């Protein structure tokens, strides 16, 4: 993995535009997938249809262990917005399982904040 601080790391582009990867969609099929939604491949994993793209296969392979959407995107070097669409499809098709990321509310509950605080103090 290249470090973000690596001076040799510069913006790269590919001939394949992001909208090709998402089949023209800018929005995922479900809006419950957030930047820190946790993803893991469903076990046992149903095989992907033969029409699945390289990026979908790479995402599914990346998610053989538990990690967040944004980590998967960074490691695959794809935009988060693209991976949201791909991940959403794979959840719909039963290949990926999503665990809720942070609550979809403006403020966290006191209990959750206290749990974070306890965790930080224990480090």
């Amino acid at each position, binding site marked *: 993995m290249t470090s973000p601080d690596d001076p040799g790391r510069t913006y790269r582009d590919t001939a394949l535009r992001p909208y090709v990867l998402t089949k023209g969609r800018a929005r995922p099929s479900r809006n419950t997938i957030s930047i820190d*939604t946790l993803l893991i491949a469903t076990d046992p994993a149903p095989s992907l249809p033969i029409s699945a793209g390289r990026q979908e296969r790479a995402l599914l392979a990346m998610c053989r262990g*538990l990690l967040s959407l944004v980590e998967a995107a960074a490691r695959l070097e794809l935009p988060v917005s693209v991976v949201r669409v791909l991940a959403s499809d794979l959840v719909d098709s039963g290949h990926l399982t999503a665990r*809720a*990321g942070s609550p979809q509310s403006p403020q966290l509950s006191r209990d959750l904040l206290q749990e974070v*605080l306890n965790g930080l*103090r224990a480090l």
Partner: protein
Amino acid sequence: MASGLSDQYLPGTVTKSVKILVVGSFGVGKTTLIGAVSEISPLRTEETLTQVSEGVDDLTGLAEKRTTTVAMDFGRITLNESLALYLFGTPGQRRFWDLWEGLAEGAAGVLVLVDTRPGRLEGSFEVFDQLEIGTQMPFVVAVNHFPDTVRHSVEELRTALDLLPETPIVDCDARDRASVLKVLTTLVEYAVDLADGPAPAPAPAPAPAPNILAPQEVVS
């Protein structure tokens, strides 16, 4: 991908995650701070800014529409067997947060990293306006100490940054794990206090302190 990736996965028992935003201007040390406490090497993701900048950047006279690539660095701390904390470093302006949909939604709080060396503080004002007016998120201000940072008292900084009396202001060394953990703990303690109920009536505004943006003598 490297074979070492298996170390980078979360324990399978983790079921929920929490975000803290680390905001500050370019070069203030956001990625250094994240790297000091993250259990993974900080990762970077990039998005292309197009319509978000409409009405902000003057495109008059440009032959074609320009896009800007905005990077976000982030790291992770597993806090207990079921909870992971993500730290996201982004430029301060709200339009950059909005680029990553859902980034600010449900965040535990915001750590604003500032550089108080001469000429470096101005970029922070827009951040505070956004935080005080545009969000309900608790935030703390952490002053990253560079070798040539002149120390200012908390009240001087509060006045110079025009912060509310209850907003915590702390010193930190973004390279030091213990120092960064202390700042994060301060932020979440403050968030817990706010969740407990309305803050006590604010103290009277302190007397005006010298303008720290101007060159001045060292204050110990």
